[in-house]
Protein backbone atom coordinates (compact mmCIF):
# COMPACT_ATOMS: atom_id res chain seq x y z
CA UNK A 1 0.00 0.00 0.00
CA UNK A 2 1.60 3.26 -1.05
CA UNK A 3 0.96 6.10 1.37
CA UNK A 4 0.95 9.76 0.41
CA UNK A 5 3.82 11.85 1.75
CA UNK A 6 1.39 13.73 3.99
CA UNK A 7 0.10 10.55 5.60
CA UNK A 8 3.66 9.37 6.18
CA UNK A 9 4.58 12.74 7.67
CA UNK A 10 1.69 12.69 10.15
CA UNK A 11 2.44 9.11 10.98
CA UNK A 12 6.18 9.68 11.59
CA UNK A 13 5.64 13.03 13.33
CA UNK A 14 2.18 12.95 14.80
CA UNK A 15 0.99 16.27 16.14
CA UNK A 16 -0.63 16.71 19.55
CA UNK A 17 -0.49 13.15 20.84
CA UNK A 18 -1.70 12.87 24.38
CA UNK A 19 -4.53 13.11 26.85
CA UNK A 20 -6.45 15.77 28.68
CA UNK A 21 -8.40 15.48 31.88
CA UNK A 22 -11.81 14.36 30.67
CA UNK A 23 -13.46 15.45 33.88
CA UNK A 24 -12.34 19.05 33.33
CA UNK A 25 -15.40 21.02 32.36
CA UNK A 26 -13.45 22.84 29.66
CA UNK A 27 -12.57 19.60 27.91
CA UNK A 28 -14.69 17.81 25.33
CA UNK A 29 -13.85 14.15 24.67
CA UNK A 30 -14.96 12.28 21.58
CA UNK A 31 -14.18 8.57 21.30
CA UNK A 32 -15.38 6.93 18.11
CA UNK A 33 -14.91 3.64 16.35
CA UNK A 34 -14.48 0.19 17.85
CA UNK A 35 -11.58 -2.23 18.33
CA UNK A 36 -13.54 -4.84 16.38
CA UNK A 37 -13.39 -2.58 13.33
CA UNK A 38 -9.69 -1.90 13.73
CA UNK A 39 -10.19 1.83 14.31
CA UNK A 40 -10.59 3.76 17.56
CA UNK A 41 -9.99 7.51 17.71
CA UNK A 42 -10.07 9.67 20.81
CA UNK A 43 -10.07 13.38 20.21
CA UNK A 44 -10.03 15.83 23.09
CA UNK A 45 -10.50 19.60 22.81
CA UNK A 46 -9.86 22.31 25.36
CA UNK A 47 -12.33 25.11 24.91
CA UNK A 48 -11.77 28.52 26.48
CA UNK A 49 -14.34 30.93 27.91
CA UNK A 50 -14.86 32.57 24.50
CA UNK A 51 -15.87 29.26 22.96
CA UNK A 52 -12.62 28.88 20.98
CA UNK A 53 -10.76 25.59 20.85
CA UNK A 54 -7.39 26.50 22.26
CA UNK A 55 -5.83 23.04 22.39
CA UNK A 56 -6.48 19.55 21.07
CA UNK A 57 -5.00 16.14 21.76
CA UNK A 58 -5.52 12.77 20.12
CA UNK A 59 -4.77 9.08 20.48
CA UNK A 60 -5.63 6.59 17.78
CA UNK A 61 -5.63 2.83 17.41
CA UNK A 62 -5.75 2.30 13.66
CA UNK A 63 -3.86 2.24 10.40
CA UNK A 64 -1.54 4.94 9.10
CA UNK A 65 -4.40 6.79 7.40
CA UNK A 66 -6.46 6.78 10.59
CA UNK A 67 -3.55 8.12 12.62
CA UNK A 68 -2.88 10.80 10.02
CA UNK A 69 -6.55 11.81 9.81
CA UNK A 70 -6.85 12.31 13.55
CA UNK A 71 -3.47 14.05 13.83
CA UNK A 72 -4.49 16.44 11.04
CA UNK A 73 -7.77 17.16 12.75
CA UNK A 74 -6.05 18.26 15.98
CA UNK A 75 -4.16 20.85 13.92
CA UNK A 76 -7.26 22.05 12.10
CA UNK A 77 -9.54 22.52 15.12
CA UNK A 78 -7.09 24.66 17.05
CA UNK A 79 -8.15 28.31 16.98
CA UNK A 80 -11.61 27.53 15.66
CA UNK A 81 -14.93 28.05 17.37
CA UNK A 82 -17.02 25.00 18.10
CA UNK A 83 -19.37 25.81 15.21
CA UNK A 84 -16.44 26.24 12.81
CA UNK A 85 -14.97 22.92 13.93
CA UNK A 86 -18.29 21.22 13.20
CA UNK A 87 -18.01 22.31 9.55
CA UNK A 88 -14.89 20.25 8.95
CA UNK A 89 -15.87 17.57 6.46
CA UNK A 90 -14.27 14.19 5.87
CA UNK A 91 -13.84 15.10 2.21
CA UNK A 92 -11.50 17.96 3.20
CA UNK A 93 -9.45 15.57 5.30
CA UNK A 94 -9.35 12.94 2.56
CA UNK A 95 -8.30 15.50 -0.02
CA UNK A 96 -5.56 16.99 2.16
CA UNK A 97 -4.09 13.57 2.89
CA UNK A 98 -4.73 12.18 -0.61
CA UNK A 99 -6.51 9.17 0.83
CA UNK A 100 -7.30 6.33 -1.59
CA UNK A 101 -10.96 5.16 -1.78
CA UNK A 102 -10.36 2.22 0.53
CA UNK A 103 -9.21 4.64 3.28
CA UNK A 104 -11.95 7.24 3.05
CA UNK A 105 -13.66 5.73 6.09
CA UNK A 106 -10.70 6.88 8.21
CA UNK A 107 -11.51 10.49 7.37
CA UNK A 108 -15.20 9.88 8.11
CA UNK A 109 -14.25 8.60 11.53
CA UNK A 110 -12.10 11.69 12.15
CA UNK A 111 -15.05 13.92 11.27
CA UNK A 112 -17.20 11.90 13.68
CA UNK A 113 -14.56 12.35 16.37
CA UNK A 114 -14.75 16.13 16.07
CA UNK A 115 -18.53 16.05 16.33
CA UNK A 116 -18.41 13.74 19.31
CA UNK A 117 -15.87 15.92 21.12
CA UNK A 118 -17.86 19.09 20.48
CA UNK A 119 -21.12 17.49 21.56
CA UNK A 120 -19.49 16.12 24.67
CA UNK A 121 -18.23 19.59 25.59
CA UNK A 122 -21.63 21.13 24.89
CA UNK A 123 -23.50 18.53 26.89
CA UNK A 124 -21.20 19.10 29.85
CA UNK A 125 -21.58 22.84 29.69
CA UNK A 126 -25.14 23.21 28.49
CA UNK A 127 -26.58 20.22 30.36
CA UNK A 128 -25.31 19.66 33.91
CA UNK A 129 -27.16 16.29 34.17
CA UNK A 130 -24.67 14.49 31.92
CA UNK A 131 -22.14 13.29 34.48
CA UNK A 132 -20.12 10.72 32.53
CA UNK A 133 -18.46 11.33 29.16
CA UNK A 134 -19.46 7.87 27.89
CA UNK A 135 -23.11 8.54 28.67
CA UNK A 136 -22.82 11.86 26.87
CA UNK A 137 -21.28 10.01 23.96
CA UNK A 138 -24.15 7.55 23.79
CA UNK A 139 -26.57 10.48 23.77
CA UNK A 140 -24.49 12.46 21.34
CA UNK A 141 -23.80 9.66 18.91
CA UNK A 142 -27.07 9.94 17.06
Amino acid sequence: MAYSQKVIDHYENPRNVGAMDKDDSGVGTGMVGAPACGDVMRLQIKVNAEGIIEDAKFKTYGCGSAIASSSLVTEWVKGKTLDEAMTIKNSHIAEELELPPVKIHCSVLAEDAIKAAVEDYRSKNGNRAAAHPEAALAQAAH
Partner: protein
Amino acid sequence: MNHPQVIELDSKKPWLTNPDRPIYLDYQATTPVDPQVLEQMLPFLTHDFGNAASRSHPYGWTAEKAVEKARQQVADAIHADPREVVWTSGATEATNLALKGAAHFYSGKGKHLITLRTEHKATLDTCRQLEREGFEVTYLEVQEDGLVDLKAFEAAIRPDTIIASVLYVNNEIGVIQPMVEIGKMLRAHKVLFHVDAVQALGKIPVDVEAIQADMMSLSGHKIYGPKGIGALYVRRKPRVRVEAQVHGGGHERGMRSGTLPTHQIVGMGAAAELAVKLMDSDAQRIRQLRDRLLKGIQARVEETYINGNMEHRVPHNLNISFAFVEGESLIMALKEIAVSSGSACTSASLEPSYVLRALGKSDELAHSSIRFGIGRYTTEEEIDATIELIAGKVGKLRELSPLWEMHQEGIDLNSIQWAAH
Protein backbone atom coordinates in the same frame (compact mmCIF):
# COMPACT_ATOMS: atom_id res chain seq x y z
CA MET B 1 26.74 -22.53 -26.48
CA ASN B 2 27.45 -20.42 -23.43
CA HIS B 3 24.75 -18.93 -21.36
CA PRO B 4 25.79 -16.05 -19.12
CA GLN B 5 25.49 -16.51 -15.37
CA VAL B 6 22.74 -14.19 -14.39
CA ILE B 7 23.46 -14.20 -10.70
CA GLU B 8 26.25 -15.21 -8.37
CA LEU B 9 25.62 -18.78 -7.39
CA ASP B 10 26.52 -19.02 -3.73
CA SER B 11 23.56 -20.04 -1.65
CA LYS B 12 25.44 -19.61 1.60
CA LYS B 13 25.81 -15.89 1.10
CA PRO B 14 22.86 -13.87 2.35
CA TRP B 15 22.42 -12.36 -1.08
CA LEU B 16 18.99 -11.07 -0.25
CA THR B 17 20.44 -8.58 2.20
CA ASN B 18 20.44 -5.24 0.56
CA PRO B 19 20.35 -1.93 2.39
CA ASP B 20 17.88 -0.55 -0.14
CA ARG B 21 15.28 -3.24 0.45
CA PRO B 22 13.51 -4.43 3.57
CA ILE B 23 14.59 -7.66 5.31
CA TYR B 24 12.49 -10.38 3.76
CA LEU B 25 10.45 -12.25 6.35
CA ASP B 26 7.48 -13.26 4.23
CA TYR B 27 8.68 -16.68 3.06
CA GLN B 28 5.15 -18.12 3.30
CA ALA B 29 4.04 -15.72 0.60
CA THR B 30 6.78 -16.72 -1.82
CA THR B 31 10.47 -17.57 -2.04
CA PRO B 32 13.26 -16.56 -4.36
CA VAL B 33 14.51 -19.17 -6.82
CA ASP B 34 17.55 -20.92 -5.37
CA PRO B 35 20.66 -20.25 -7.46
CA GLN B 36 21.27 -23.98 -7.88
CA VAL B 37 17.75 -24.37 -9.25
CA LEU B 38 18.02 -21.38 -11.58
CA GLU B 39 21.22 -22.72 -13.06
CA GLN B 40 19.46 -25.93 -14.05
CA MET B 41 16.47 -24.14 -15.57
CA LEU B 42 18.23 -21.69 -17.85
CA PRO B 43 19.45 -24.00 -20.63
CA PHE B 44 15.86 -25.04 -21.32
CA LEU B 45 14.93 -21.51 -22.28
CA THR B 46 17.59 -21.08 -24.92
CA HIS B 47 19.60 -24.10 -25.93
CA ASP B 48 17.31 -27.01 -25.05
CA PHE B 49 14.09 -25.29 -25.98
CA GLY B 50 12.26 -28.19 -27.61
CA ASN B 51 8.68 -29.21 -26.92
CA ALA B 52 8.60 -32.35 -24.80
CA ALA B 53 5.72 -33.65 -26.94
CA SER B 54 7.78 -33.57 -30.14
CA ARG B 55 8.44 -37.26 -30.45
CA SER B 56 10.26 -37.18 -33.74
CA HIS B 57 13.47 -35.30 -33.08
CA PRO B 58 16.21 -34.74 -30.47
CA TYR B 59 14.89 -31.31 -29.49
CA GLY B 60 11.77 -32.99 -28.17
CA TRP B 61 13.57 -35.97 -26.70
CA THR B 62 15.92 -33.75 -24.68
CA ALA B 63 13.00 -31.82 -23.27
CA GLU B 64 11.06 -34.98 -22.51
CA LYS B 65 14.04 -36.47 -20.70
CA ALA B 66 14.32 -33.39 -18.50
CA VAL B 67 10.59 -33.43 -17.76
CA GLU B 68 10.65 -37.07 -16.75
CA LYS B 69 13.69 -36.52 -14.55
CA ALA B 70 11.85 -33.72 -12.76
CA ARG B 71 8.77 -35.88 -12.45
CA GLN B 72 10.87 -38.51 -10.67
CA GLN B 73 12.35 -35.82 -8.39
CA VAL B 74 8.91 -34.61 -7.31
CA ALA B 75 7.63 -38.17 -6.93
CA ASP B 76 10.63 -39.07 -4.75
CA ALA B 77 10.03 -36.01 -2.60
CA ILE B 78 6.58 -37.26 -1.64
CA HIS B 79 7.20 -41.04 -1.87
CA ALA B 80 5.01 -41.47 -4.93
CA ASP B 81 5.35 -43.08 -8.33
CA PRO B 82 6.28 -40.66 -11.15
CA ARG B 83 3.20 -41.73 -13.10
CA GLU B 84 1.17 -40.21 -10.27
CA VAL B 85 2.53 -36.70 -10.82
CA VAL B 86 0.57 -34.29 -13.05
CA TRP B 87 2.12 -30.92 -13.93
CA THR B 88 -0.05 -27.83 -13.53
CA SER B 89 0.43 -24.07 -13.60
CA GLY B 90 0.57 -23.96 -9.82
CA ALA B 91 -0.98 -25.34 -6.67
CA THR B 92 -4.17 -23.35 -7.21
CA GLU B 93 -4.75 -25.13 -10.50
CA ALA B 94 -3.80 -28.45 -8.88
CA THR B 95 -6.43 -27.96 -6.19
CA ASN B 96 -9.02 -26.95 -8.77
CA LEU B 97 -8.23 -30.07 -10.77
CA ALA B 98 -8.36 -32.29 -7.71
CA LEU B 99 -11.62 -31.02 -6.24
CA LYS B 100 -13.58 -30.25 -9.38
CA GLY B 101 -12.08 -33.15 -11.30
CA ALA B 102 -12.82 -35.76 -8.65
CA ALA B 103 -16.19 -34.26 -7.62
CA HIS B 104 -17.43 -34.42 -11.20
CA PHE B 105 -16.11 -37.92 -11.74
CA TYR B 106 -17.54 -39.33 -8.52
CA SER B 107 -20.76 -37.31 -8.39
CA GLY B 108 -22.71 -40.48 -9.03
CA LYS B 109 -21.51 -41.83 -5.70
CA GLY B 110 -22.32 -38.72 -3.72
CA LYS B 111 -22.22 -34.96 -3.74
CA HIS B 112 -20.85 -34.04 -0.31
CA LEU B 113 -17.38 -32.66 0.46
CA ILE B 114 -15.71 -31.80 3.76
CA THR B 115 -13.04 -29.23 4.38
CA LEU B 116 -11.88 -26.83 7.11
CA ARG B 117 -12.74 -23.17 7.61
CA THR B 118 -9.05 -22.35 7.68
CA GLU B 119 -8.16 -23.71 4.23
CA HIS B 120 -6.40 -21.70 1.58
CA LYS B 121 -8.62 -19.70 -0.75
CA ALA B 122 -7.83 -22.08 -3.61
CA THR B 123 -9.75 -24.75 -1.72
CA LEU B 124 -12.48 -22.56 -0.25
CA ASP B 125 -13.32 -20.75 -3.48
CA THR B 126 -13.31 -24.01 -5.45
CA CYS B 127 -15.70 -25.48 -2.88
CA ARG B 128 -17.97 -22.45 -3.26
CA GLN B 129 -18.00 -23.04 -6.98
CA LEU B 130 -18.91 -26.68 -6.46
CA GLU B 131 -21.73 -25.56 -4.17
CA ARG B 132 -23.04 -23.39 -7.00
CA GLU B 133 -23.02 -26.52 -9.15
CA GLY B 134 -25.18 -28.41 -6.68
CA PHE B 135 -22.62 -30.04 -4.39
CA GLU B 136 -22.81 -29.71 -0.61
CA VAL B 137 -19.77 -28.73 1.43
CA THR B 138 -19.21 -28.87 5.17
CA TYR B 139 -16.65 -26.33 6.41
CA LEU B 140 -15.45 -27.71 9.75
CA GLU B 141 -14.59 -25.45 12.66
CA VAL B 142 -11.14 -25.71 14.16
CA GLN B 143 -10.13 -25.46 17.79
CA GLU B 144 -8.54 -22.40 19.34
CA ASP B 145 -5.07 -23.62 18.47
CA GLY B 146 -5.97 -24.15 14.83
CA LEU B 147 -6.12 -27.94 14.89
CA VAL B 148 -9.22 -29.82 13.81
CA ASP B 149 -11.06 -32.06 16.28
CA LEU B 150 -10.92 -35.60 14.87
CA LYS B 151 -14.20 -36.62 16.47
CA ALA B 152 -15.98 -33.66 14.91
CA PHE B 153 -14.40 -34.55 11.57
CA GLU B 154 -15.59 -38.13 11.75
CA ALA B 155 -19.06 -37.04 12.78
CA ALA B 156 -19.29 -34.89 9.66
CA ILE B 157 -18.72 -37.83 7.30
CA ARG B 158 -21.94 -38.97 5.60
CA PRO B 159 -22.72 -41.90 3.33
CA ASP B 160 -22.67 -39.47 0.38
CA THR B 161 -19.32 -37.87 1.26
CA ILE B 162 -16.88 -38.32 -1.61
CA ILE B 163 -13.93 -36.03 -0.88
CA ALA B 164 -12.28 -34.35 2.08
CA SER B 165 -9.65 -31.65 1.61
CA VAL B 166 -7.19 -30.65 4.32
CA LEU B 167 -4.37 -28.15 4.44
CA TYR B 168 -1.31 -30.02 5.74
CA VAL B 169 0.50 -26.92 7.01
CA ASN B 170 -1.47 -23.70 7.36
CA ASN B 171 -0.01 -20.78 5.45
CA GLU B 172 -1.03 -18.14 8.02
CA ILE B 173 -0.29 -19.82 11.33
CA GLY B 174 1.92 -22.74 10.33
CA VAL B 175 0.03 -25.41 12.29
CA ILE B 176 0.27 -29.03 11.21
CA GLN B 177 -2.98 -31.00 11.12
CA PRO B 178 -3.00 -34.64 12.34
CA MET B 179 -2.74 -36.01 8.80
CA VAL B 180 -1.96 -39.66 9.62
CA GLU B 181 -5.08 -39.93 11.77
CA ILE B 182 -7.21 -38.09 9.24
CA GLY B 183 -5.97 -40.27 6.39
CA LYS B 184 -6.70 -43.44 8.35
CA MET B 185 -10.20 -42.26 9.19
CA LEU B 186 -11.02 -41.23 5.64
CA ARG B 187 -9.72 -44.47 4.18
CA ALA B 188 -11.91 -46.42 6.59
CA HIS B 189 -14.95 -44.47 5.40
CA LYS B 190 -13.89 -44.67 1.73
CA VAL B 191 -13.68 -40.91 1.33
CA LEU B 192 -11.05 -39.51 -1.02
CA PHE B 193 -8.36 -37.53 0.77
CA HIS B 194 -7.05 -34.42 -0.94
CA VAL B 195 -4.07 -32.82 0.78
CA ASP B 196 -2.82 -29.29 0.19
CA ALA B 197 0.86 -29.79 0.92
CA VAL B 198 2.02 -26.48 -0.49
CA GLN B 199 3.54 -25.21 2.76
CA ALA B 200 4.55 -28.67 3.98
CA LEU B 201 6.96 -29.76 1.24
CA GLY B 202 10.52 -28.95 2.21
CA LYS B 203 9.59 -28.08 5.77
CA ILE B 204 8.45 -31.45 7.14
CA PRO B 205 8.61 -34.98 5.66
CA VAL B 206 5.74 -35.54 3.22
CA ASP B 207 4.80 -39.13 2.47
CA VAL B 208 1.62 -39.90 0.54
CA GLU B 209 1.67 -43.48 1.80
CA ALA B 210 2.07 -42.60 5.47
CA ILE B 211 -0.94 -40.28 5.39
CA GLN B 212 -2.85 -42.31 2.78
CA ALA B 213 -3.42 -39.32 0.56
CA ASP B 214 -5.36 -39.80 -2.65
CA MET B 215 -4.50 -36.43 -4.18
CA MET B 216 -1.98 -33.80 -3.20
CA SER B 217 -1.35 -30.22 -4.39
CA LEU B 218 2.20 -28.91 -4.59
CA SER B 219 3.68 -25.55 -5.50
CA GLY B 220 7.02 -24.55 -7.01
CA HIS B 221 7.41 -21.06 -5.68
CA LYS B 222 7.13 -22.03 -2.01
CA ILE B 223 10.17 -24.31 -2.21
CA TYR B 224 12.67 -21.94 -3.82
CA GLY B 225 11.49 -22.82 -7.30
CA PRO B 226 9.83 -20.58 -9.90
CA LYS B 227 6.30 -19.23 -9.83
CA GLY B 228 3.79 -20.55 -12.33
CA ILE B 229 4.41 -24.26 -11.80
CA GLY B 230 2.84 -26.83 -9.54
CA ALA B 231 1.88 -30.47 -9.47
CA LEU B 232 -1.04 -32.65 -8.51
CA TYR B 233 -0.38 -36.12 -7.12
CA VAL B 234 -3.13 -38.53 -8.20
CA ARG B 235 -3.02 -41.99 -6.64
CA ARG B 236 -2.84 -45.06 -8.87
CA LYS B 237 -3.32 -47.79 -6.29
CA PRO B 238 -6.20 -47.76 -5.57
CA ARG B 239 -6.96 -45.77 -8.69
CA VAL B 240 -8.26 -42.25 -8.33
CA ARG B 241 -9.79 -40.55 -11.33
CA VAL B 242 -10.14 -36.86 -12.03
CA GLU B 243 -11.88 -35.24 -14.96
CA ALA B 244 -9.63 -32.84 -16.83
CA GLN B 245 -10.37 -29.16 -16.37
CA VAL B 246 -8.13 -28.03 -19.22
CA HIS B 247 -8.53 -29.71 -22.59
CA GLY B 248 -6.47 -29.69 -25.74
CA GLY B 249 -4.15 -32.50 -26.69
CA GLY B 250 -4.51 -34.92 -23.82
CA HIS B 251 -1.18 -34.29 -22.10
CA GLU B 252 -0.45 -35.72 -18.66
CA ARG B 253 -2.42 -38.90 -19.26
CA GLY B 254 -5.41 -36.85 -20.32
CA MET B 255 -5.62 -35.11 -16.99
CA ARG B 256 -4.14 -31.76 -17.99
CA SER B 257 -3.56 -30.60 -21.53
CA GLY B 258 -1.07 -28.01 -22.67
CA THR B 259 2.54 -27.91 -23.75
CA LEU B 260 4.77 -28.60 -20.80
CA PRO B 261 6.95 -25.66 -19.73
CA THR B 262 10.23 -27.55 -19.59
CA HIS B 263 12.21 -24.87 -17.75
CA GLN B 264 9.51 -24.50 -15.11
CA ILE B 265 9.24 -28.23 -14.62
CA VAL B 266 12.99 -28.64 -14.36
CA GLY B 267 12.92 -25.83 -11.79
CA MET B 268 10.26 -27.49 -9.70
CA GLY B 269 11.96 -30.88 -9.85
CA ALA B 270 15.32 -29.44 -8.87
CA ALA B 271 13.72 -27.36 -6.11
CA ALA B 272 11.87 -30.38 -4.72
CA GLU B 273 15.02 -32.49 -4.63
CA LEU B 274 17.00 -29.70 -3.01
CA ALA B 275 14.24 -28.99 -0.51
CA VAL B 276 14.21 -32.56 0.70
CA LYS B 277 17.99 -32.66 0.84
CA LEU B 278 18.21 -29.45 2.88
CA MET B 279 15.03 -30.01 4.88
CA ASP B 280 16.61 -31.10 8.14
CA SER B 281 19.46 -28.61 8.16
CA ASP B 282 17.15 -25.78 7.07
CA ALA B 283 14.57 -26.67 9.71
CA GLN B 284 17.12 -26.86 12.49
CA ARG B 285 18.66 -23.51 11.63
CA ILE B 286 15.28 -21.90 11.13
CA ARG B 287 14.00 -23.25 14.42
CA GLN B 288 16.93 -21.57 16.19
CA LEU B 289 16.20 -18.31 14.40
CA ARG B 290 12.51 -18.54 15.24
CA ASP B 291 13.23 -19.19 18.91
CA ARG B 292 15.64 -16.28 18.96
CA LEU B 293 13.02 -13.99 17.40
CA LEU B 294 10.32 -15.11 19.80
CA LYS B 295 12.48 -14.81 22.92
CA GLY B 296 13.77 -11.45 21.78
CA ILE B 297 10.31 -10.04 21.20
CA GLN B 298 8.78 -11.44 24.38
CA ALA B 299 11.64 -10.09 26.46
CA ARG B 300 11.05 -6.56 25.18
CA VAL B 301 7.32 -6.36 24.43
CA GLU B 302 4.39 -7.12 26.74
CA GLU B 303 0.95 -8.32 25.78
CA THR B 304 1.95 -10.47 22.80
CA TYR B 305 -0.04 -13.56 21.83
CA ILE B 306 1.07 -16.38 19.60
CA ASN B 307 -1.61 -17.50 17.14
CA GLY B 308 -1.83 -21.25 16.59
CA ASN B 309 -0.52 -24.34 18.33
CA MET B 310 3.21 -24.02 19.04
CA GLU B 311 3.93 -27.72 19.27
CA HIS B 312 2.26 -28.91 16.06
CA ARG B 313 3.71 -26.18 13.96
CA VAL B 314 6.47 -25.66 11.44
CA PRO B 315 9.33 -23.60 12.84
CA HIS B 316 9.33 -21.47 9.71
CA ASN B 317 6.23 -19.57 10.82
CA LEU B 318 5.59 -17.24 13.72
CA ASN B 319 2.27 -15.44 13.89
CA ILE B 320 2.00 -12.97 16.75
CA SER B 321 -0.64 -10.49 17.81
CA PHE B 322 0.52 -7.29 19.47
CA ALA B 323 -2.39 -6.15 21.58
CA PHE B 324 -3.58 -2.54 21.47
CA VAL B 325 -1.72 -1.79 18.26
CA GLU B 326 -3.29 -2.03 14.83
CA GLY B 327 -1.67 -4.31 12.23
CA GLU B 328 -1.39 -2.04 9.24
CA SER B 329 0.07 0.82 11.23
CA LEU B 330 2.55 -1.69 12.63
CA ILE B 331 3.56 -2.87 9.18
CA MET B 332 3.91 0.75 8.09
CA ALA B 333 6.19 1.28 11.07
CA LEU B 334 8.17 -1.82 10.19
CA LYS B 335 9.08 -0.69 6.73
CA GLU B 336 12.56 -2.13 7.10
CA ILE B 337 11.11 -5.66 7.15
CA ALA B 338 8.74 -7.36 4.71
CA VAL B 339 6.03 -9.24 6.59
CA SER B 340 2.29 -9.67 6.32
CA SER B 341 -0.53 -9.07 8.71
CA GLY B 342 -3.91 -10.58 9.53
CA SER B 343 -5.26 -7.07 9.76
CA ALA B 344 -8.29 -6.06 7.75
CA CYS B 345 -6.64 -2.93 6.49
CA THR B 346 -4.07 -4.95 4.63
CA SER B 347 -6.54 -7.09 2.77
CA ALA B 348 -8.53 -5.45 0.01
CA SER B 349 -11.79 -6.08 1.80
CA LEU B 350 -11.97 -4.61 5.27
CA GLU B 351 -12.35 -8.02 6.88
CA PRO B 352 -9.71 -9.38 9.23
CA SER B 353 -8.01 -12.69 8.47
CA TYR B 354 -10.58 -15.47 8.27
CA VAL B 355 -8.04 -17.92 9.63
CA LEU B 356 -7.44 -15.93 12.81
CA ARG B 357 -11.16 -15.39 13.25
CA ALA B 358 -11.72 -19.13 12.91
CA LEU B 359 -9.37 -19.59 15.87
CA GLY B 360 -11.88 -17.61 17.88
CA LYS B 361 -9.54 -14.65 18.16
CA SER B 362 -11.20 -11.36 18.87
CA ASP B 363 -11.22 -9.09 15.86
CA GLU B 364 -8.78 -6.82 17.68
CA LEU B 365 -6.16 -9.54 17.97
CA ALA B 366 -6.72 -10.49 14.34
CA HIS B 367 -6.20 -6.84 13.42
CA SER B 368 -2.99 -6.63 15.47
CA SER B 369 -1.28 -9.70 14.09
CA ILE B 370 1.97 -10.02 12.19
CA ARG B 371 3.08 -13.14 10.33
CA PHE B 372 6.84 -13.71 10.28
CA GLY B 373 7.94 -16.25 7.67
CA ILE B 374 11.57 -17.34 8.14
CA GLY B 375 13.43 -18.99 5.28
CA ARG B 376 16.57 -20.51 3.91
CA TYR B 377 18.40 -17.23 3.53
CA THR B 378 17.38 -15.53 6.81
CA THR B 379 20.37 -14.58 8.96
CA GLU B 380 20.86 -14.00 12.65
CA GLU B 381 21.65 -10.33 11.97
CA GLU B 382 18.30 -9.94 10.25
CA ILE B 383 16.51 -11.50 13.22
CA ASP B 384 18.29 -9.24 15.70
CA ALA B 385 17.51 -6.15 13.62
CA THR B 386 13.88 -7.26 13.51
CA ILE B 387 13.68 -7.61 17.29
CA GLU B 388 15.05 -4.08 17.76
CA LEU B 389 12.64 -2.69 15.25
CA ILE B 390 9.59 -4.41 16.71
CA ALA B 391 10.40 -3.40 20.28
CA GLY B 392 10.87 0.22 19.29
CA LYS B 393 7.91 0.61 16.95
CA VAL B 394 5.38 -1.29 19.06
CA GLY B 395 6.32 0.97 21.94
CA LYS B 396 5.84 4.07 19.84
CA LEU B 397 2.46 2.91 18.52
CA ARG B 398 1.27 2.02 21.98
CA GLU B 399 2.02 5.56 23.08
CA LEU B 400 -0.33 6.67 20.31
CA SER B 401 -3.03 4.19 21.27
CA PRO B 402 -6.01 5.07 23.48
CA LEU B 403 -6.60 1.36 24.03
CA TRP B 404 -3.14 0.88 25.53
CA GLU B 405 -3.69 3.86 27.81
CA MET B 406 -6.98 2.43 29.00
CA HIS B 407 -5.44 -0.99 29.53
CA GLN B 408 -2.68 0.54 31.64
CA GLU B 409 -5.28 2.34 33.73
CA GLY B 410 -6.86 -1.01 34.41
CA ILE B 411 -9.98 -0.41 32.34
CA ASP B 412 -11.56 -3.55 30.93
CA LEU B 413 -12.07 -2.77 27.25
CA ASN B 414 -14.86 -5.33 26.99
CA SER B 415 -16.96 -3.21 29.32
CA ILE B 416 -16.97 -0.16 27.07
CA GLN B 417 -19.92 0.71 24.87
CA TRP B 418 -18.20 1.62 21.62
CA ALA B 419 -19.86 4.23 19.44
CA ALA B 420 -19.10 2.37 16.23
CA HIS B 421 -20.64 3.46 12.95
